Structures are given as C-alpha cells and as structure tokens.
C-alpha cells in the first residue's frame, strides 16, 4: 500500500453488507494516486461494482472510510462529490438532445450560457462527435452513445472519473478501438480513472494498475505485466489469461526454486510463490506460450516431461496445440506462426520443459 499522504482516492478498511449477514466487500484497502488509471477486475459478484458505487456515493460503506483528496466523503451525497461517471448502458437522458445531455451538468452548476456552449462544443470535439449535437441519443449507434456518455462525464472537468463496464455493450472491434481512445483521453486530461470491467484484456491494455477482485477482496493489485507474469495466487493466475495447472506436492525447497512431484509421479521445477515448506500441496501454473519443446533451448539439468500431441489447431498468428501431460490431457501450448516453426502432429511424442521462473507454485486452492 502506498502511504496515504499522496493518495488521491483512498479506501480505508471499507466493508459493505447489504443484508447484515454476509459481507460483499471485506476489508478493502486501496490507495489511488492522482492521474492513475486503475481498473477493478473480477468475476460478477466479486464486489468491484459495489466498490465503485460506494465511491460514487450511491451505496454507503457499512464500515470504514472512503477519502477523496484526504477528505472523508462517506457522508457527502453523490451530487456534491464532483465525480464524473460513465454508466454501463450510458444512461444518456433519452428526452434530451446530445447537447442538452452535455449541458446538464453545467446547468446544475449554474454556469452561464456562453460558457456552457463553449464547454459542450469542446467536449464533443474531444470525442469527435461535434456534428451530432442536436441528435437524440436514440438516433445514435452504440459506439456514438458511448462517446457522448464519456463526453458528458468529462464536460464538467472532474478530476476523478468512474467507469462501470462502459464498453460492455459494444462489439469486439469497436470495443478495442474505444479502449485506446478512452486511455488517450484520460492520459491527455491527466484525470484519475477508476474503471470496472470483467474483461481481462480490457484491464490489461488500458490500466496503469489492475486490482483483481474476488470474494469481496483484492486478490492482487499490480501493473498489467506483473499481474500476467507474476500472479500471486492461483485465482489470479487462472483469471488472467490462459493457464496450464497441475497439482502436486513440494519435495525440495530453495529460496527461489523448488521441486514439485506431480500427482502422476513426474517431478518438475517451479518458482515458489505461495508455498513455504516441503510436503505442502501446491498448484503449479504455467502460461501456454512459455512452454518449450525444442530440446536445444532446455536449461541444463532442468526437469522435463514427456507429452503426447492430442490436437493441433491452426489459429493464424499462433498455433495452439493440446497435449496430454502427466495425466492431464488438457495441457495447452501456444507457438508463434513463424517460418521455421515446427507444426506438431497429433499422436507425436515430445518432451516439454520451461524456465523454472515461468512455472509458479501457487496455493492449492
């Protein structure tokens, strides 16, 4: 955790319960520095949206404090928090034109008409929607509505903007395009963004840091690369990206290296992450693209496993090969489609290995 002094937004031991019996958010501590793009990622029901709603002021924290610029905002009503928000279904007011929608937050702030018009125009130009000022939301496509919702959340120049799965309703191509656009706008304006999504790709491509939520807790808070390459527990490892897992028992332990005997009896090398002693059960996790079957690249002395090719899938940019390894016939490896790349044949017997630091021994859960 970063020290609270330079935190722009801070959750301090926040808990939330709806029914007085179960906690939806359990002991949340989170500091967000100014200008950061932070994504809350997690499966549905993990508490991420509840956290966002507490920050926006639509839900009250059952316990703990939420601070904005060092000030406790627990009892500040939503309309006085000055936080911009983009909703999942945009929530553009259907009875107002695009310009009226954007003008609304300025009107309630009693801004003069000339100033309002200038700001609305600037905001619309920012999202390249200047020509649509007089349309009704219903006359816009999903992507256009998304831009307007973004412009509306930014037009009153909030320093903090919350986004609740804003791209969920868009098709894949448009979604990818909007991801970059939102990221660029946020960077250019220097605003702090708290972004909620259940799409891990979105989280990885957009964020400065990602908070992975599960079961009402932050499982890991880290920059995207660290999250992907160094998950701290098996939930994060499985939630982010594709993963091969195998269970076993730790048989030897060094500081940054251990040996795991798999349930099939084979032994492999791994990096201990969540294991501390010999004899402990563990789940080892390895990314499909980090598996090596070219003997020439094996590290000397490293453990290898025998594998049989079950299925070869051509996916264009990569090859995806399903192997049967140590009793697990759902072991996937991915190789780049390069001119010198070997195309494995089903039924072929191969030997696979990896760098010990790529194979992470995590909790057995």
């Amino acid at each position, binding site marked *: 955790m970063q020290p609270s002094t330079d935190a722009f937004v801070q959750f301090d031991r926040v808990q939330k319960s709806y029914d007085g019996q179960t906690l939806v958010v359990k002991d949340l501590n989170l500091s967000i520095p100014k200008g950061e793009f932070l994504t809350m990622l997690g499966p549905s029901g993990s508490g991420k949206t509840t956290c966002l709603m507490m920050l926006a002021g639509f839900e009250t924290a059952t316990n703990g404090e939420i601070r904005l610029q060092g000030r406790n905002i627990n009892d500040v009503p*939503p309309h*006085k928090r000055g936080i911009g928000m983009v909703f*999942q279904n945009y929530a553009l007011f259907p009875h107002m034109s695009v310009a009226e929608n954007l003008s609304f937050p300025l009107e309630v702030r009693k801004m003069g008409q000339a100033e309002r018009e200038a700001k609305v125009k600037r905001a619309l130009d920012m999202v390249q929607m200047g020509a649509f000022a007089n349309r009704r939301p219903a006359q816009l496509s999903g992507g256009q509505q998304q831009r307007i919702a973004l412009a509306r*959340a930014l037009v009153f120049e909030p320093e903090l903007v919350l986004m609740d799965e804003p791209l969920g309703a868009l098709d894949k191509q448009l979604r990818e395009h909007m991801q970059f656009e939102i990221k660029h706008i946020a960077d250019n304006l220097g605003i702090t963004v708290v972004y909620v999504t259940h799409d891990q790709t979105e989280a990885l491509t957009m964020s400065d840091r990602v908070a992975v939520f599960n079961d009402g807790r932050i499982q890991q808070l880290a920059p995207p690369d660290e999250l992907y390459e160094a998950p701290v527990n098996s939930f994060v490892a499985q939630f982010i990206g594709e993963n091969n897992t195998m269970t076993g028992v730790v048989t030897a332990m060094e500081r940054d290296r251990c040996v795991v005997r798999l349930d099939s009896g084979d032994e492999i090398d791994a990096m201990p992450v969540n294991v501390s002693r010999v004899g402990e059960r563990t789940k080892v996790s390895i990314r499909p693209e980090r598996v090596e079957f070219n003997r020439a690249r094996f590290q000397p002395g490293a453990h290898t496993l025998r594998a049989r090719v079950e299925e070869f899938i051509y996916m264009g940019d990569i090859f995806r090969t399903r192997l049967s390894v140590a009793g697990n016939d759902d072991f996937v490896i991915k190789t780049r489609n390069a001119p010198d790349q070997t195309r494995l044949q089903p039924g072929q017997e191969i030997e696979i290995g990896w760098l010990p630091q790529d194979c992470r021994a995590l909790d057995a859960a």
Partner: protein
Amino acid sequence: MADATVTGGMPAGLGARGAAATPGPMVAADGTPLKASLARSLRRQKMRALLLIAPLLLFIVVSFVLPIGDMLLRSVQNGIVPDTLPRTVVALRDDPAEVPGEAVFEALYADLVVAEEYKVHTQLGSRLNYEMGGASSMFRGAGRAVGRFGTDIYAEQFEDADPALVDPARWAVWMADPAVREALPRTADAYDAWAGFTAELGGDDPAAEELGDVVYAALYRDLASGAQAPGLPAVDVAGFESVSLRDEFIADDAGWGEPAIWDLLRTFSPRVTAGYYLNAVDLQMGPDGVEMRPEGDRIYLQLFVRTMILSVTITATCILLGYPVAFLLASLPMRSANLLMILVLLPFWTSLLVRTSAWKVLLQQQGVINDLLVWAGLIGNDGRLALINNQTGTIIAMTHILLPFMILPLYSVMKGIPPTYVRAAKSLGANDWTAFWRVYFPQSIPGIGAGSILVFILAIGYYITPELVGGTKGVFISNRIAYHISDSLNWGLAAALGTILLAVVLLLYWAYDRMVGIDNVKLGG
C-alpha cells in the same frame, strides 16, 4: 424470354440506362414478379391471421360498430312527421305563410283522418311535445275532432246532385280507371287512403261500404278547381255550400292558428333533421333561423361544460394522488410493492355499487368524516360540510373509483425507467429535486398521458356514481342521456347527446395527439 417481357414494359430511356443494372421489377427464380410471389406466399399467413381475429371482429361489429352506427342514425333520423302527415308536408312546401292557407289544412285533415284510423297521431303528438309543450294535446284533440268537422255536407250535396256519386260500387269502377284518377288526383289519393284503412282495419269491401267524408271533401276540391272527369256525372259545384277546414281546426284548438306549430312541422318535415342536435346544445329553430332556447330551457350546454370540468378535475386529482403512489410502487422492492399493489387493486375487486354506497355513509352530513371533524373540533356541529349530493361528492367518489386506472399505467411506465438515469443525473451534480424534475419526471410523462386519457374518457361517460352521490349539481351528461333513454323515451335526443359526447372525446384525443403525440402514450414500459 423472361427478360424480354420485363424490359418490354420499360420506358425507352430507363431501359437504355438500366441496361447494365437489373432492368424492370425484381423477378423471382421462376420468372414471376417478386411482389406477386411475395403476396402469394403471405396470403396463407394473412388468411390465418384473419381467421384468428374473426370471432372478436364479428363480436365487435355486432356489439359495438352496429349499435354506434344505429345511434348515429337515430340522432338525425326523423321519419315520424313525413310518415304520419305526408300530404301536409308536401302542401307546406308550397305555402311559405306563417300560418298556412286552406290547402295545407285540407291536407292536414286528410292526413289526420288516416292517422286517427291507424291511431298514430298521438305518437306524433308526443314526439312533437319534446320540442313544443302542448303539441301532444293539439294532436290528440284534432284526431278526435276530424270526425266531427262539417265535411259531411259534401256527401249530402253530392247525393242531392246525383245519387250515383254516393254509390260505392261505381266509385270502385271509377277509381280503377286511370283517366279518372289523373283528372281527380286529390280524390284518387283520398279514396285510396280510405279504401286502404277500410279494407285493412275494418276487413270490409270498399266497393260495398259508404264512402268517408274525406273522399267527398277531396272531390269537391278537385271539381271546384275546374277538373273534368270522364265517366262521372257532371256536377256543378259552384252552388255548393263549402266548409273552411282552417276555421274548423282553429275552432278546435287556437294553436293551429299560431305560427309555432307550423314552424315546428316545417323544422321536422325533412326525413333527416338537425333538430335533435340543436336541442342537445340548447338551440332551436326559430322564425329567423337557429337561435338560443329561452333562458329557462337551457340545460345541456351547462351539463356538457360541467361534465368536462368535473372530468378534468377528477383526472387532475387522480394524477396528484396517483403519481406518488406509482412512484413508491416502482421504487419499492418486489415484495412490498406487491402488497401495495394489492391495496391499489382492492377497489377493483369490490362492487362499484358497494363502494359508492360506502361513500354515502362516509360523506353524508351525519356521516363518519363529518363526525370525525366535529369530534376533532375542526368544524362546529352546525357547520358540517356538505360532502355528498353535490360536485364534491362526485369528485371524491369518482377519484377513488378511477384512481387505479391512473396508477397502473403510471406504474408500468415508471417501472421501465432504469434507476441509472437518476443516478447519472446525481453524478453529474444534480440534487434530488433537479434529478427528479429534469430527468425522471419527463420520462414518466407518457404514463401520465396514458393514465389521463384513460381516466378522463372513463370519467366523461360515467353514470352510476354521479347518479348516486351527485345530487342535482353533480350529475353528468350521461345521466341525462340515461334519462332520455329510459324515462322520456326521446331516443333521438339521447343519441344526439351521445354522439356529441363521442365527438368531444375524439376531438380531445386529436388535440392530445397534436400537443403531446399519441405515440408518447405508454401503457407499459
């Protein structure tokens, strides 16, 4: 082949331009035009759809369209005057005088003699009595009097001149001869009418019965105007003693000498009349055209206006009371909302009469509400409020009865407004009131529209509740319609009032469509 027939019908210029593109209408794979092909494939579907709605369609035509059409017809239909007094109506056309001359009275005499035999003159009298007091007794009296008029002198004088002229058998022969009929048109007409009722009502043979005076009076008129009939004995009627029917009628009832009854007969002599409509808006046909009825006779305009004002008031109270309830219903969790919904629907499950009677108990001067107010010291015992048998009573009871019709559409529209809109408004800096007024309320307007139309249209035609709790000041136009349907039996006027009510509703509907837009009315979210 197919190409040639298709391009053959194209204008030359288009054909040349379209040579590269597909020319002519689209054709299906088998060469038939695509539209015909589509129509054929949809025909079966349409037939099935028609069959499915056929029972309801039939029911609606029989139980709704036909009765309404009949009502519209009745409001302008006016056969009774031309049917009962056909000769008078014709004669009146040629006589513009305020009180017409002898010819019209002769026609009236002939008509009344016939009508008296068929006993239909009293029906005409009571019909005209709706328009003019006293008409009924005039016709009843005249019906009795026509038999005693001095027209019997003609028969005696004709008999004196030539006994053959009173021989029924000869008359039968004469009246079968077209030449005679053509020479003596009035006589032929009177004879036919006399022969008609003699045979029909008495069951007698006209060729054996003594002729009625009405035939001789007509013969006198024909001969006096110089007619020469072949085959009849020549009689010079110049020396005959004659009788003035005008004088006879006026002697029976001075009303026949006044312009009023003749204006009335002229107004109602066409088969189609605007008389019921004029009456329905407190107008009447005067000597100088359309004019207002006398002050004391005006009731309908006032009733229409009152019906409108009360309906608008009831609609407004329903909005005021229903909106918060619907809002609460839409925002409560499901379980509590269901309970509240049952309370809202409870009035629906109770008989209308029971509810209305309950209001009588509650609202009367010695009733529960007044007792409570007196007990609480808010009003004195001598200052008990008049809450029933007036407009207040009607408004209270009808608001209660119609409230669900406002709440239900409002609720379903509000249920369809996602809570994120209000949240969005708040996140943009709007306080609770602004978020409601600028964002929530405008989106609930379609529900207000739907509820208002429903409540207003139901209210404007309401009958039983105003009848029971409205007293005299709180009744609606529909109560008057019911009165004319079941008590005064003036169905034409009832139909006219009903048609005007229908027109007013349609007009308001149209105005609403122009102002708010009917596609803005939502019964569901």
